[in-house]
């Protein structure tokens, strides 16, 4: 293909997206679009899968049957989200095994929030309320993204997320109205999860490398800083409602902008965790790699059984 032809195809492609038409897997697309989407969708999928680990930690120790079935269902949903996203990603011509390999080798990233430990039951509340809350803010605009399979997966995901946030908030609310010890536990969880949740919405706009291209392809509608502000504005009143304090001495309502002003984020910590030096990076990766390698004989046995059955059918 000549360069001029390529430019023409790209112009038609850009116009399609600008007109809110969807791109489907077999349509022509620029190589950069394919690569960017494989990267973003797979990292999203990895985050859902790794995201099961911190909460899985508490399923057996949930304080009541009601809490246990809810947490179990929530974690099962995250597995589902990972699977919707992996299959959307595979439509771009990458295999599931390649995607796992990228995760296990550290080539692909996942949301760094999942590298923090879950040390008390209140962490289940804080994660549902804050981490899923921030995820919803990130994900809702993606239901209108340009790549059809990604947009459709996100519609399913978003439908399921709101229960996640509510069950988390209910846990926090219950603890916050309990004994002093329970209230302290809730406050401690909020203290630990607040800043990492704000960082989940991505680096500040000044440091974000992909924003312009991502806006064009509708992988993004608002900038990271806008999303962060939205998250803070919606979450602060929720904390007040249940009598918990946001751990930011500089947090203040701004009458002029009608938004909250807030303190500086510790981006050094963020980049440390992204680079693999968070409290649980190694534990998370070990868990994923072990699950894959120790499950190999099961995958092989299932395949061998399927082939045997097939053969029986053919010779019968």
């Amino acid at each position, binding site marked *: 293909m000549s360069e001029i032809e390529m430019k023409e195809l790209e112009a038609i492609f850009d116009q399609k997206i600008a007109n809110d038409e969807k791109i489907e897997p077999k349509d022509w697309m620029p190589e950069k679009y394919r690569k960017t989407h494989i990267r973003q969708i797979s990292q999203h999928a990895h985050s859902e899968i790794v995201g099961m680990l911190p909460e899985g930690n508490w399923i057996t120790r949930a304080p009541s049957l009601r809490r246990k079935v809810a947490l179990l269902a929530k974690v*099962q949903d995250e597995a589902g989200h990972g*699977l919707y996203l992996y299959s959307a990603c595979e439509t771009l011509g990458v295999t599931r095994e390649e995607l796992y390999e990228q995760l296990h080798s550290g080539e692909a990233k996942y949301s760094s929030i999942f590298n923090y430990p879950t040390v008390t039951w209140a962490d289940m509340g804080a994660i549902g309320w804050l981490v899923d809350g921030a995820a919803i803010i990130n994900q809702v605009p993606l239901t209108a993204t340009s790549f059809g399979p990604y947009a459709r997966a996100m519609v399913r995901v978003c439908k399921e997320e709101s229960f996640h946030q509510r069950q988390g908030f209910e846990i926090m609310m219950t603890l916050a109205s309990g004994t002093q010890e329970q209230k302290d536990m809730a406050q401690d969880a909020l203290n630990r999860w607040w800043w990492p949740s704000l960082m989940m919405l991505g680096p500040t706009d000044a440091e974000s490398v992909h924003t312009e291209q991502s806006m064009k392809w509708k992988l993004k509608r608002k900038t990271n800083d806008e999303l962060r502000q939205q998250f803070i504005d919606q979450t602060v009143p929720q904390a007040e409602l249940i009598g918990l304090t946001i751990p930011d001495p500089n947090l203040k309502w701004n009458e002029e902008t009608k938004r909250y002003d807030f303190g500086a984020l510790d981006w050094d910590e963020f980049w440390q965790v992204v680079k693999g030096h968070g409290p649980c990076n190694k534990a998370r990766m070990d868990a994923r790699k072990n699950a894959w390698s120790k499950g190999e004989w099961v995958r*092989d046995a*299932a*395949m061998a*059984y399927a082939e045997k059955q097939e053969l029986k059918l053919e010779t019968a």
Partner: protein
Amino acid sequence: MKNWPLWEVFVRSKNGLEHRHCGSLHASDATMALENARDVYTRRMEGVSIWVVPSKEITASNPDDSAELFDPAKDKAYRHPTFYELPEELKHM
């Protein structure tokens, strides 16, 4: 060893409606594909019936042939009821 093949999943959300494509998954055989489809795509009563089809068995039209395949229908307005001019007085036709 060999990787589990890919299956396309179609779900009928309730009787009276058609099965609709809702995604894909990996499974070693059809039975496992059905079970996995139940867990992945119908956790909230989204379906009353599931089809699974090996992805490799699907023949899809190529978007490059779209013009050839679908454009001929564009200039056949006479296939639509609005093409026909009828007297104003005529109702319910």
